[in-house]
Structure formats: structure tokens, C-alpha cells
């Protein structure tokens, strides 16, 4: 149990700190790297949750592909600094009134979530209370994915194709 808690808290710490750095870093390259660190933390959490395949996929897909794409874009554009021009500062969303409303909404959401969690009864039970030796089996995962989630899988493939075509069209240089 102690090992579990230790792992959870350390990975959680990595994840949260990484995420916070994503938001707070001025330089997008650092944001990307922080996010990668955060993803490693998450991958660790997935391992703790007995989902090694998800953990590896998290690394391969997120850290290995998506984040490389982000980094690639950041480097390609080479415009890392934020610009906060006058028109941006005077944006309606930054008016005191809007900020106040936003803050109120955030507090409201936090209250709602807190209340929801306090009302939930079975949050105290350990996540791995249910013994299931096959939960981390890639075989089972594949079986379920290609039977019960067949349709979703196919639809996702269409989505991927659409995204691919869209990205190619968008990023292509106009021949003018």
C-alpha cells in the first residue's frame, strides 16, 4: 500500500507540476517540454492503474508524436513570445466586469464540484479493489476494441483521414 501511495503521489506531483509549468511558462518550447514531463507522470499513473498499454500509448502517441508536432510547429514559426498589444489588453474579456463574472463562475464551478464530490459515496474505495488479472492484458483490450467498439473505431479512422486531408490542405502554401 505504501508503495502504491508513494508512486501515486510522486507521479501526481510530476503531472501537476508539469501541467502548471505548461501554463506558466512564457516560452512555448518550455511549455511543450513541461507537458511531456506531465505526460510521463500520467503514464506512470496509468501503470499504477494497471493499464500499461495505455501508458505506452500515452508516451508513443502523445509524447512521441503529438508533442513532436507541437515542438515542430513552435520551431517552424519561431515566434515564441506572447504579444499583449493594446488592443488585446482592451479586449472585452479583460474588462473588470468580465473578469469578475469569470471569477464568480470559477468559484461556482469549484463549489459545485466540491459538493458533487462530497455527495458521492463510494469514492473512498481503493481503485484496485476489484481483482481482475486480465485488466492489463493487451489481448483483451484488442478483443474489446475490435468487437464492442468496432463502429467507433471505424468512425475514428474516418476522422483521422479527414483530419489528415484537412491538415494537408491548410498547411499547403497557396500557389498565388
Amino acid at each position, binding site marked *: 500500500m505504501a508503495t502504491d501511495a508513494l508512486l501515486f503521489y510522486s507521479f501526481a506531483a510530476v503531472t501537476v507540476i508539469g501541467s*502548471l509549468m505548461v501554463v506558466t511558462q512564457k516560452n512555448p518550447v518550455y511549455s511543450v517540454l513541461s507537458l511531456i514531463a506531465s505526460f510521463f507522470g500520467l503514464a506512470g499513473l496509468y501503470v499504477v492503474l494497471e493499464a500499461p498499454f495505455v501508458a505506452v500509448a500515452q508516451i508513443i502517441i502523445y509524447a512521441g508524436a503529438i508533442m513532436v508536432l507541437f515542438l515542430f510547429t513552435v520551431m517552424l*514559426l519561431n515566434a515564441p513570445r506572447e504579444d499583449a498589444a493594446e488592443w488585446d489588453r482592451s479586449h472585452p474579456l479583460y474588462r473588470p466586469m468580465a473578469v469578475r463574472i469569470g471569477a464568480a463562475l470559477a468559484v461556482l464551478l469549484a463549489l459545485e464540484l466540491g459538493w458533487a464530490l462530497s455527495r458521492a459515496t463510494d469514492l473512498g474505495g481503493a481503485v484496485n479493489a476489484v481483482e481482475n488479472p486480465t485488466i492489463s492484458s493487451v489481448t483483451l483490450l484488442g478483443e474489446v476494441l475490435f468487437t464492442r467498439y468496432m463502429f467507433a473505431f471505424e468512425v475514428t479512422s474516418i476522422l483521422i483521414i479527414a483530419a489528415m486531408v484537412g491538415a494537408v490542405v491548410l498547411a499547403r502554401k497557396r500557389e498565388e
Partner: protein
Amino acid sequence: MPLGHYLVLSGLLFAIGTAGVFLRRNLITLLLSVEIMLNAVNLAFVAFGRVQGTVDGQIITFFVMTVAAAEAAVGLALVIALFRHRESLNPEAFTSLKW
């Protein structure tokens, strides 16, 4: 570990992501924040799946990842296209509905 811990962690990540979306003025950071939010949801899914003792949570996570990949591809292509137009990554630079 209790499920509640995972949920709180998930909520925390989600909040960080949301804050990033609202506070940052860089499209790329915005997209990164969105990724954080997606991952927060993923974590909740996997945790719930583990509680249930099924793999469904993990599978939904895969779908989310796929969608995230698609979103990143299109989103970044858009960012590049927009940057070519305005030499800026501030989302408020692109508020006109056409140009």
C-alpha cells in the same frame, strides 16, 4: 489508492488546463492547455475503468487520444496558416470572421 484521489487529481489537471485556455495569449499554449484538459479526462476514464474492473475506460482513452491527434494535426495546421496571415499567435488577432 482511493478513487477520490484520482478524481481530484483529474479535476485539478482539468482546472489547470482551463486556466491555461483563459489566461494565455498564445494559440500554441492554448492548444497545449486543451491537451491537458483531455488528459485529465483520460485519467478519470482509466481510473473509473479500473474501479469497474473493465478495459472500457482504457479504450475510450484511446479514442480520446486519436481525437487529440487529429485535433493537434488540424489545429497546428490552422495555427501555421493563421500565423502566415498575421505574424501573430494571439487568438485575439483572429477575431474577424473573414478577411
